[in-house]
Structures are given as C-alpha cells and as structure tokens.
C-alpha cells in the first residue's frame, strides 16, 4: 500500500510540475520570451503583431540591452499575417498564414533554441534568402511539394502590399496547435526586407542565459527598464513585459499552478491520512502481542521504539519500492512526454504544446517520501502510546480474557 501510494504521488507531482513548466517554456520560446520588449502603443492597443506599431531602431536598442543586461540573450522576431499563394502566374489557390521571421543563420541563429531541426518533418532548413518552411498542415492544404515556388502576399510596415516569391524547402511541426495550422517561417533578414522593416521587429525577446525563467528577476528588470525609458509616455517608445504579463499568462499560470498543487497535495494528504490510519490500526491490532511482550518483561520504552522502528522499516521499504515503481514512469514521461494532440481543444491565449512532459525534481521525491515515511511513522507512534498507559498488573487478566 505504501509503495503504491508513493509511486502515485511521485508520478502526479512530476506530471503537474512538468505540465506547468511545459506551458511556461512553450510560451517563452514561441511567444513571450522570459521578457519581451514592444512599443508602448502595440501593448496598449493589444495589437502585438501590428507591423505599423513595430519597434524601430533595433540595432541601437539591442546594443544598449546587451551592454546593460548581459545575463539575457536578446532576440528580435517579426510576426505577421499574410496570404500564401501557390499558383504560378496570377493569384489562385491561397491560404492565410501566420508568418514568423526568426534568425535562421548567422551568429544569433535561433535554430537551436527553437529546435527547428528536430521539428522538421521533411526537407531542410532555409540556407539562402527567399527560402521558407511551412507547417505540415499548410503544406498539405495547399498541395505543395518541396522546392515549389509560392508567393507570399502581405502588408508591409507602411501598409503597402508586400509580395515576394519563396521556395518551400521544408515542412515543420512545432507541436502547438495554434502555430501548426498555418505557419510560415522565414529568415528574419528576409522578412525585414520584404516588410520594409529593415531596422525593426514586432518584438524583441529576452531569454535568461541561465536557461530558465526567473520570475522575480524578470519583474525587477522590467520595472527598472520601464522607469528608465519612461515607457508609456511616447507611443512608439519601448516597453518591457515579463512572461506573466503577456497573453493572460499570469492568471492562467496561477490557475494551472494552484490546480496542480492542490491536486498533488490533496492526493499526498489523503495518502498520508490513509497510511497514518494504517499505522494506527496496525498498532491497535497488535494490542494482544504488545501485552504479551510486556508481560514477558520487555520494557515499555523498548517496545515503543521497536514499534516505531518497524514502521520506519515498512515506510522505507514502501518508499523504495514506490520510487522504484513511480520514478521510471516519471522519468520516461520527462524524456518522451505524452502526446495530447487532438485532446487540446478550444481557444486560449496560452500556447499549449501537444506533448506534455513530466519533470522530476527534489519536490517530486518529497511528494513521495513525505507521506510514505512520515505517515506510517506517525500512525505507529500514536498507536504505540497506549503501551505507556497499560498497567502491568492487569496484563495477565487481559491475556486470560483473550
């Protein structure tokens, strides 16, 4: 019972932590960064992808940030909406696309960060201007083939039409339903040129070089930056947002976190109560045995300690078995994840990865060991207290009666 309970606690905690961190990482990677800089107007008008509200003077902005905030890596990106036309001459078969301009080559390439190689489903990454990747779904919708020329028709920074021919060199799957519907990935420089945004980007993302999101540091950084730049006073001035301040993530993450923590710890508590009860019942069931051992001259203290030690051994054995049972599953889910594609429905501002991975940490071990070790120990300790209340002169009478 202890082993099974510990295994379930370990699995549940790892899964809940993993899911939360998976949401954070997916959103940070593809949308929010750990912090993000946009123009105050783009943020205020909730038009984060509007090209005419893009950041300009990007070179200076990045230079200043790299100098003042060296613990973050600064990544410009351009997100835009467009049509992809698959016909050769005049416009014909078209589909709307969610365009993304990432640095695909050069010193600040995002290929590794975005795991673009791993996400390729066929073909290769663009290596020259005017080459592009499209999502698998879009590729099928338009009936494209690798190497095919397509035309992107969109609006540029000035509101003029932007038209460019692209060669589809590969397809990819981000594993995020919102993006996989109609993604078009181009090199950032190409996008900037085509959309008349040569020294601009719709957003500038900051990622902690530590590799993980540091909420307190991000909040302090954003506060300081916005104060320093008088953000909000000029419509096209830069303004920094933390991850939680974007896409309603603060409330969504709080909900996910609270639900996860409540589920895990309620489960841990229930298991603890069950094991505590089992410890108590074990002690009560051994009432006769304890009386006999007292009658045979065993000291109450020794008897009590032996009872506690036994429960410790039971707890340790149960925990070991439980960890042996639960950890491999948790580690498997950490490494391979669980593909929930098709199960995630509905619209949300939060990007949710199709594959959710568990995360094993010290907290995971604590979630298993806490009820596994402490509850039987506490149960036995409580049950054992009756030993000290028993009158030795009455023991033989009790034994005769049983």
């Amino acid at each position, binding site marked *: 019972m202890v082993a099974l309970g510990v295994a379930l606690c370990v699995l549940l905690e790892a899964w809940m932590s993993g899911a939360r961190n998976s949401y954070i990482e997916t959103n940070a990677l593809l949308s929010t960064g750990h912090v993000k800089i946009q123009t105050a107007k783009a943020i205020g008008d909730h038009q984060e992808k509007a090209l*005419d509200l893009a950041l300009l003077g990007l070179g200076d902005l990045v230079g200043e940030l790299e100098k003042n905030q060296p613990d973050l890596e600064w990544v410009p990106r351009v997100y835009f909406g467009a049509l992809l036309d698959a016909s050769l001459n005049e*416009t014909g078969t078209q589909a709307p696309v969610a365009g993304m301009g990432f640095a695909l080559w050069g010193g600040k390439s995002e290929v590794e960060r975005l795991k673009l190689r791993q996400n390729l489903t066929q073909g290769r990454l663009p290596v020259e201007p005017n080459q592009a990747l499209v999502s698998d779904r879009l590729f099928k919708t338009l009936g494209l083939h690798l190497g095919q020329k397509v035309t992107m028709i969109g*609006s540029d920074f*000035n509101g003029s039409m932007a*038209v460019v021919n692209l060669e589809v060199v590969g397809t990819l799957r981000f594993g995020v339903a919102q993006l996989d519907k109609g993604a078009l990935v181009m090199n950032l420089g190409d996008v900037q040129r085509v959309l008349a945004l040569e020294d601009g980007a719709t957003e500038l993302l900051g990622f902690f070089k530590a590799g993980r999101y540091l909420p307190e540091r991000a909040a302090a950084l954003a506060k300081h930056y916005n104060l320093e730049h008088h953000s909000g006073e000029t419509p096209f001035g830069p303004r920094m947002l933390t991850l939680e301040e974007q896409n309603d993530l603060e409330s969504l993450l709080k909900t996910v976190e609270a639900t996860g923590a409540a589920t895990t710890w309620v489960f841990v508590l229930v298991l603890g109560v069950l094991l505590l009860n089992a410890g108590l019942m074990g002690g009560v069931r051994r009432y006769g045995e304890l009386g006999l051992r007292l009658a045979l001259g065993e000291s109450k203290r020794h008897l009590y300690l032996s009872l506690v030690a036994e429960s410790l051994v039971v707890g340790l054995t149960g925990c070991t078995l439980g960890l042996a049972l639960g950890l491999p599953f948790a580690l498997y889910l950490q490494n391979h994840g669980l593909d929930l594609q098709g199960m995630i429905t509905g619209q949300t501002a939060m990007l949710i990865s199709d594959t959710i991975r568990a995360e094993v940490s010290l907290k995971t071990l604590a979630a298993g060991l806490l009820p596994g070790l402490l509850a039987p120990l506490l149960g036995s300790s409580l049950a054992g207290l009756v030993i000290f209340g028993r009158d030795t002169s009455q023991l033989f009478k009790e034994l005769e009666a049983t």
Partner: protein
Amino acid sequence: MKKTFLLALALWGPTLAWAATPTARQILERMDKNTFSQTQVSISTMTVHGERGDRNMTVQTWTQGKDRSFSLYLAPARDKGTKMLKLGDKLWIYYPSADKVVAIAGHMLKNSMMGSDLSYEDLMENSSLVEAYEAQLVGEETLLDRKVWVLELTAKEPERAYQKRKLWVDQQQYLALRQELFAQSGMLLKRIEVKEVMATAKGWYPKRVLFKDVLKTGLGTQWQIEELELDPPIPASRFNKSSLGR
C-alpha cells in the same frame, strides 16, 4: 405699369430664382463636366503623412473614361515598376519584385492602396456622382472665403462603398472643396479636402487634395498633380493585361 411689373415678377420670379440656384443634380453634372475628359495622362505625387513619418510616391496614370486606368509607380525605388490596371470592376496589380500579377477582389478591395488613406475600393469608383447617388441641396455656406453649396448624397445601390456623402461645392468653380464620406450607419469614414485647384481647358481641376481615412492613424494622404494632359491619344494596348509585366 406697376401692375404689369408685379405680374411679371410673379410669373418670372421663381424662374429667375431657379436660374440663380441650380438643382443638386445640375451641380453634380457641372462637377462631372469639370473633371471629365475622354482620356487623361497625369503624373502625381502621393505623400502619406503617417504616424511615424512621411512617405512619398510618384505615379504616372493613364485614364480612359471612368472605368479604365493604368498606373505605373515611378518612385520610390521600393515601389518602382509596380503597375495597376483597372478594367471596369476588375483590378490587377503587378509586383516587379515577384514578377507577379495579383487580382484585387473581395475584402482586399477595402485594404489601403500603397499604405495611403485611399482604398482600392476608392480607385474602383466607376460611376459619376449623378449616376451613383440621389442628391439633395441642403444649404449654402462659406468655406475658405468661398461661397459653397452643401449637398447630401444618398447611394442608389446598396453595394456602393460609401452610402452617404456630404459635399461642399464651390459655387464658381464647381469643385467639391470638401467631402465627407459615410457608411450606411452614418459613421464618418473619410474626409477629402481640395487644398489647391488649377485651371484647365475644360474648367477647374483639383491640383492638391488631402484624403483622410478617419479610421486610420496619421495625418492623411496628400495627392498632388504635377503634370496633367487632357484628351491625349492613348493606345488601346495600354489598358490590356499584357501591359502588366516587366
């Protein structure tokens, strides 16, 4: 004698008043005559006063009647070589960067033309105001020290881009010095103001016009005619789809 004068005044008075104040339809017909020519060739500059700076474009346009036009963008370098062909209710744009002809139809017609305050739909206005709208003369005002008639126009067809228009028409030059264009709901969509006029062989012609899409940020788009030739011969091939291309 006095009786005869009064009788004459009673009989001719309304006619004289009518002669002094033309009807709304007559005003619109005079306006159409003022600007209409069989063919036109012009070179214009378009300055978009955007929220984040100004942008200039130069375009040469060949027009035949109301429903055929061909435009070639001469500057800036980014837009140079872009061509637009309007044939009736069809519009195509040729983009030299992609060597591609894009048919502009449906919702795309509502998009901004080259980032300006004009939409492609504005370019597609084929009918004269007399043909497209029922007009009503609602008053007289003084605008920019000039006497103007105020006209309210209601579209005859529901598919018209602007269901209502209000015009301030110069009483001497028969040019709409100001126009306000409304949606069916009565919401103001665009404002057009003539800033400068020029004399042509046919009358007066708007030389510098400010278009303001009130739903768009920025200070509007100024359209200025640099060169205008009325009724020049234009080869029919100019208005052929084959003229779209390199």
